């Protein structure tokens, strides 16, 4: 099925903070906008909320919900649509290829959406590290525990351990404790300074971060810097974890065992850049080595007609994402206006964007960089693995098979993948890509995925045999 009588002025992929702000600011400037998201509701990760109130206590959520209402009157919202590819048409337009599964049981079906411009606002996902037992049921990513709570009103467990690195551990632990879980500890592998001198508090000077700290104190949740979960234990579900004290490089100093039913773990985030990489957008290294989409002052990628905002341009949280989305929407609207007026030279330079927004974005971007530098992943974690520890969960590849591949001459992550198959399963390396690169002694490469979501052959065949998208809604 192809939407549209005419091509959209702007197609936005991602309905979180960045995508909604971008779509709304462009639509308010008169652009015809379509926004595509895989979820059943707008919100992305941060503004995730249940179908039925009460909504979670999420800072900024009321305003976001108002934005989505305004947007639904001004733009086409395609929810429950998973984008698997974006292609460039001969005339320069972009076609976004999606699949959707209607609730009537008729199965998956392809949808194409065409636009003159594209805004990539695809967010990020957790970056877990492997350790013995990390595939036991009951071990969740920190974002997974948060999604259960925010989107479904489900508390992930009764006795919960939170472990990893980064400021995100604080809201996850605070949310679980406030919802009634007994949070046995927050194990921050970095730090060494304690919560009172936590970089978030030092850099942000209170606000949201202070409220998490207060909440943890109120629920008597211990915050333990320079500690980590080294191993998870249990038969067919999690029963206990081994917690270790670490030195500054994450080598183990001592261990103890903690009985628990749930572990929420995350070591930062992986920005979702695959659609941008597919289109040929330039990437750069973020402060933590992650490949992110390179954008200019106007949120333009290196590919004409393609903007990016939020985490794919560097992890920085919802406030920065929203700001970048707004700027991208305004820049896209300017581009459309100048294109209509036939002013190609002015279009190249772009009209001035609101100075106050630009300055605020640059300030927040610098803050985001400082945070990433405060929470690095240190090599010591590689010593936590045993020979039989799965590195790739999908293809069940243990560390020993990676080492065999290296002994056979696979010196880089790509050769290791071809020989030992980590990253060749369902998730396409989204989970194990980072640790495999680390174990190969490399920084992670930009993800190359010709098809970024699984698609049935029937839907693929239907998409390929479809008429060029000109008619429509058919």
């Amino acid at each position, binding site marked *: 099925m192809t939407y549209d009588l005419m091509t959209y002025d702007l197609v936005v992929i991602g309905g979180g903070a960045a995508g909604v702000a971008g779509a709304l600011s462009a639509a308010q400037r008169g652009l015809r906008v379509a926004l595509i998201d895989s979820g059943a509701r707008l919100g992305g990760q941060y503004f995730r909320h249940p179908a039925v109130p009460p909504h979670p206590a999420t800072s900024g959520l009321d305003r976001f919900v108002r934005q989505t209402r305004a947007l639904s009157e001004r733009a086409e919202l395609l929810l429950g649509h998973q984008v698997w590819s974006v292609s460039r048409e001969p005339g320069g337009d972009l076609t976004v290829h999606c699949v959707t599964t209607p609730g009537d049981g008729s199965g998956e079906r392809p949808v194409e959406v065409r636009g003159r411009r594209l805004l990539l606002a695809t967010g990020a996902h957790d970056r877990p590290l492997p350790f013995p037992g990390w595939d036991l*049921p009951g071990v969740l990513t920190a974002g997974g525990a948060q*999604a259960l709570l925010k989107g479904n009103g489900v508390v992930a467990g009764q006795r919960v351990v939170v472990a990893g690195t980064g400021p995100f551990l604080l809201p996850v632990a605070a949310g679980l404790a406030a919802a009634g879980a007994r949070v046995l500890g927050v194990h921050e592998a970095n730090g060494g300074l304690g919560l009172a001198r936590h970089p978030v508090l030092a850099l942000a000077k209170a606000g949201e971060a202070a409220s998490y700290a207060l909440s943890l104190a109120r629920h008597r949740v211990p915050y333990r810097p320079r500690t980590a979960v080294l191993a998870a234990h249990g038969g067919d579900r999690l029963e206990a974890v081994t917690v270790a004290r670490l030195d500054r490089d994450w080598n183990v100093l001592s261990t103890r065992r903690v009985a628990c039913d749930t572990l929420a773990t995350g070591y930062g985030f992986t920005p979702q850049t695959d659609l941008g990489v597919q289109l040929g957008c330039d990437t750069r290294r973020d402060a933590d080595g992650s490949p992110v989409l390179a954008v200019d002052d106007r949120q333009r990628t290196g590919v004409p007609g393609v903007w990016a905002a939020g985490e794919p341009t560097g992890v920085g949280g919802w406030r920065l994402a929203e700001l970048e989305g707004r700027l991208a929407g305004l820049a896209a609207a300017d581009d459309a206006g100048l294109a209509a007026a036939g002013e190609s030279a002015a279009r190249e330079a772009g009209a001035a964007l609101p100075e106050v927004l630009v300055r605020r974005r640059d300030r927040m971007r610098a803050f985001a960089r400082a945070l990433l530098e405060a929470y690095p992943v240190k090599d010591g974690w590689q010593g936590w693995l045993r020979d039989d520890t799965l590195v790739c969960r999908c293809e069940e590849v243990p560390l020993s098979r990676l080492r065999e591949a290296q002994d056979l001459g696979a010196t880089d992550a790509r050769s290791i993948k071809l020989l030992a198959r980590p990253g060749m399963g369902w998730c396409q390396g989204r989970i194990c890509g980072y640790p495999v690169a680390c174990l190969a002694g490399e920084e992670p490469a930009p993800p190359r995925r010709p098809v970024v979501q699984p698609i049935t052959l029937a839907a693929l065949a239907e998409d390929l045999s479809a008429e060029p998208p000109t008619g429509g809604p058919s």
Partner: protein
Amino acid sequence: MTFQITIDGRPVPVTPGQTIGAALHAAGVRSWRTTRFGGRPRGLFCGIGVCFDCLVTVNGRPPERACLLEARPGDEVTTS
């Protein structure tokens, strides 16, 4: 205001809007499939549609991600 789904015939309560994965997890069901090679139990992990650990068979259809799939009254989840 809840409805029911089943897992291998056993009833599981659902609050409208919950995903299959969330409803099963809330009911204390932590895994609903085993892996191809090691036969290891798997349930929710990333919770946001990225890792594919939580693949589930509902109403006999091909496997879908339980963390994304919204539960509907009477859905039948089968394991093994």
